[in-house]
């Protein structure tokens, strides 16, 4: 087990290193010249540009620059561009071209919004999805079951961003059923306004991604209800409820974990749309804005962070998976 975790962690780090190379390539082939971003618009003479290019180290070999970037992440790296000096502590992900701030600090300030969004959405998706799935498996073959299965297929088929867009336009803009506030900090504005502002995005994420959980937990419930150990439990005279809760449920949770892992990347992508549509200033919206303004350090940092999350999530899911299902051997 321990060895497995180590191996997975090493391969995860290798993947991230490769990602960082790809991300760093953005600076070279990117649509923006970093030196130009620091050159005063009205007085950018070629000499000044050359001076800034030199102080940014853009004239050095690629490998050396990549080394500098990686060193910044580990040890921090004060940023020099011409006469401008901006402190950037470890982990230094660069300094924003447009805002001249430490990217790591900047993203950290926007992280709570994304985290709130993702955690709330997944929580709703998992509870709603497994509850519906278990319910459907219990009433298998009835109209209710067919309704759940059918509607989950249809909901699953609609592009997520259109659901979010229409929900926003109607339920917030037009009818005002949900508040407009978007994300507010639970610590300064209070948990109630925090939850109120995020309620609709949560519901949209929750309902659209609950379909997967519903389908697969239903499937595995049906499967496990036919297993010998469940039959044994029943034969012992355990109530239906107890059987479902104590024995069958455990196996129903396994696909939930699998899907959580698989859906994680999709969830991150969905966050970009959610934040764009509901105007929540989280990491996704930041990345989108940065792409609009060609702010390379922010784009690079968000790509790297997202990749780190996906890699970590996959490892964590695999480990949980092995803990939940004794049949899965890690090797």
């Amino acid at each position, binding site marked *: 087990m321990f060895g497995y975790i180590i191996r997975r962690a090493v391969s995860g780090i290798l993947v991230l290193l490769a990602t960082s190379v790809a991300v760093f390539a953005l600076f070279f082939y990117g649509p923006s010249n970093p030196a130009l971003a620091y050159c005063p618009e009205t007085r950018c003479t070629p000499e000044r540009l050359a001076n800034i290019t030199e102080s940014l180290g853009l004239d050095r070999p690629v490998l050396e620059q990549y080394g500098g970037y990686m060193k910044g992440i580990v040890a921090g790296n004060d940023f020099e561009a011409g006469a401008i000096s901006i402190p950037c502590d470890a982990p230094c992900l660069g300094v924003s071209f447009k805002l001249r701030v430490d990217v790591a600090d900047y993203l950290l300030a926007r992280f709570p919004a994304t985290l709130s969004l993702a955690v709330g959405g997944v929580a709703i998706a998992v509870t709603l999805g497994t509850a519906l799935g278990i319910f459907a498996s219990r009433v298998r073959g009835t109209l209710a079951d067919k309704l759940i299965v059918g509607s989950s297929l249809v909901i699953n088929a609609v592009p997520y961003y259109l659901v979010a867009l229409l929900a926003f336009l109607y339920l917030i803009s037009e009818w005002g059923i949900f508040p407009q506030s978007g994300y507010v900090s639970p610590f300064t504005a209070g948990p109630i306004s925090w939850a109120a502002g995020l309620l609709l995005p949560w519901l949209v994420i929750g309902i659209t991604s609950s379909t997967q959980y519903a389908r*697969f937990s239903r499937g*595995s419930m*049906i499967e496990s209800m036919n297993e010998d150990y469940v039959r044994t439990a029943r034969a012992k005279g355990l109530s239906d409820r107890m059987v479902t809760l104590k024995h069958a449920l455990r196996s129903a949770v396994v696909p939930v974990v699998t*899907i959580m892992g698989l859906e994680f990347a999709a969830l991150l992508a969905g966050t970009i749309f959610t934040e764009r549509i509901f105007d929540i200033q989280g990491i996704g919206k930041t990345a989108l804005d940065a792409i609009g303004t060609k702010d390379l350090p922010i784009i690079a940092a968000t790509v790297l962070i997202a990749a780190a999350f996906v890699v970590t999530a996959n490892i964590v899911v695999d480990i949980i998976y092995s803990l939940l299902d004794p049949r899965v051997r890690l090797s």
Partner: protein
Amino acid sequence: MGIQPTELVVSNTDEPEVKSQDVAGRSPTQIALDRLRHDKIAMVCLAVVAVFVLIAIFAPLLTDLFGVELEGGDPVTDTKADSFPAIGPPDYGFTWEAPLGLEPRTGNDLLAEWFYGARTSLGVATFATVAATLMGIVIGLVAGFARGWLDRVIAFVIDIFLSLPFILVALALAPIIVSRFGAQPERLEFVQLCALLFVLSVFGWMTLARLIRGEVLSLREREFVQAARVIGVPTRSILFKELLPNLVAPIVVSISLGLPAFVTAEAGLAFLGIGVVGIPSWGQTVNRAVEFFSTYPLFLYAPVVGICLLVIALNLLGDAVRDAFDPKTRR
């Protein structure tokens, strides 16, 4: 939103196998097609898809038929002083001159835009599906058949691609491609289209590759492959002549689930502001129409309905195809 259909991977955790009575003398593909023919929902979806395909193919003919013109608006005569259309909705009733109304600001006809939007949508999705499928097949075959380092390298590359946030990378990558190769203004549209197709294809092959690799791993130990090897059939022939025919089912399923994913992705990227300038796209229309939601809703509805209908029909059809080809699943 991602373009990796999660259903592909975990389909075997669905309901337990139900014994189907095999009729002698029919190939699995024939059986699947037969099943599909009896699926009413699938047939309805197929009809819907067929209609969209016809619209896409005959877009120029249809615009002539309705007497409308693509991007033929004159802002001065076709829109009023406040930029709203001078004929048709939202200020005047329905008119055959512009059945779906005119676009505010430019006065372009929205029906023509809708027809050509279908064309872009299906065209891009088809191309990307074909390209991604080919990549998936080739890489999967190679990885499965090559032992050792090549397999491991491919697995690593797949890991990297799966951990990269698709939307962010697509949004960051497309402008780079355009700026690198779009020097001549007359080739701009073409380069933008290529960038879009490239980005979509390059992020769409991983799941199929993994799936095929897995299948190949199990098939390669089977007798017919061993036999072919013993008699000295070259590896290439074994791959494409012996193995490929056995992989029809996963490939067909991957294509049928890939199409809606690419339609969704294309429109989603266009909505976020990436895509082909000058070529109509539903996603771009949605993006421009959002601000007119309260004053001119039809502007928004047309492309939304287009995307929804097409994606739902394609998705449900894809589900049906998967179920038909996978004997383990049953509705």
